[in-house]
């Protein structure tokens, strides 16, 4: 069983959500980043947040896949990582929380 692939999939899913939400916080913090993330005028900065978020997650997951070795999958550990990433990502897309961490 190719556990490397499953671990990479866990990694990609968690990192995609984290990067998308972190880019959302950064866009709120800086107008320059917001403009940089506007890849499409119709969709606005949302286009860049999704594109770059997925791209960064893909690159890091791919590097992880190349560097990691086949080993037993500790599913509990990976599930905690994924669920924590989901919860943190949900906080980073919740505007009152973003204003709270940016001290606005």
């Amino acid at each position, binding site marked *: 069983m190719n556990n490397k692939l499953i671990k990479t999939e866990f990694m990609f899913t968690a990192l995609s959500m984290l990067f998308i939400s972190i880019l959302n916080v950064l866009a709120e913090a800086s107008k320059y980043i917001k403009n940089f993330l506007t890849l499409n005028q119709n969709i606005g900065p949302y286009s860049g947040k999704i594109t770059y978020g997925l791209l960064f997650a893909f690159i890091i997951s791919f590097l992880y896949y190349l560097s990691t070795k086949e080993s037993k999958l500790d599913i509990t550990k990976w599930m905690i990582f994924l669920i924590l990433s989901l919860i943190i*990502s949900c906080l980073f897309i919740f*505007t009152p929380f973003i204003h709270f961490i940016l001290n606005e």
Partner: protein
Amino acid sequence: MSTTEIVSLLHGFLGTIFLMSFTGAIVSLLTFAQNRFNLLKYSLILMTLTILFIDITGIYVYSIYRSSDPASAKSKILASETSWVHTILMEFKEFAGIFVALLMLFITSFALHYKSKILQEKKLRNSVLILLIFAMLLTLLTFGLGAYITKVQSV
């Protein structure tokens, strides 16, 4: 009927298909019958395809919603006393839909990787079940927000 209205309707209708497929996936996981893998597999594939189409149609509707035209739904909401509907609810909704798609892609690929072992091994089955419940909670929240935003100001 305009294209936007048809796409908006399709966006909501696909949500119903997503919820129905969820029932199939949950039944296959909770009945503990090992011959239910095909039901699980097809339910998950249908859920994933549906959520991808929901996101694609959602992006189309979103581009109309956030148009810079003063008559657009976003402009009207921001000009009203309920601007929080956009700044809090819509901001959350637009990302939550993408998170559900990412989760569904993962769950489906996970299930297809382990095949019927998913139903035999408790840890694998519970993992899929927990992730499906998270995906469903996020979906229900997204649908609820969508319905509320449309009630406040339709596209």
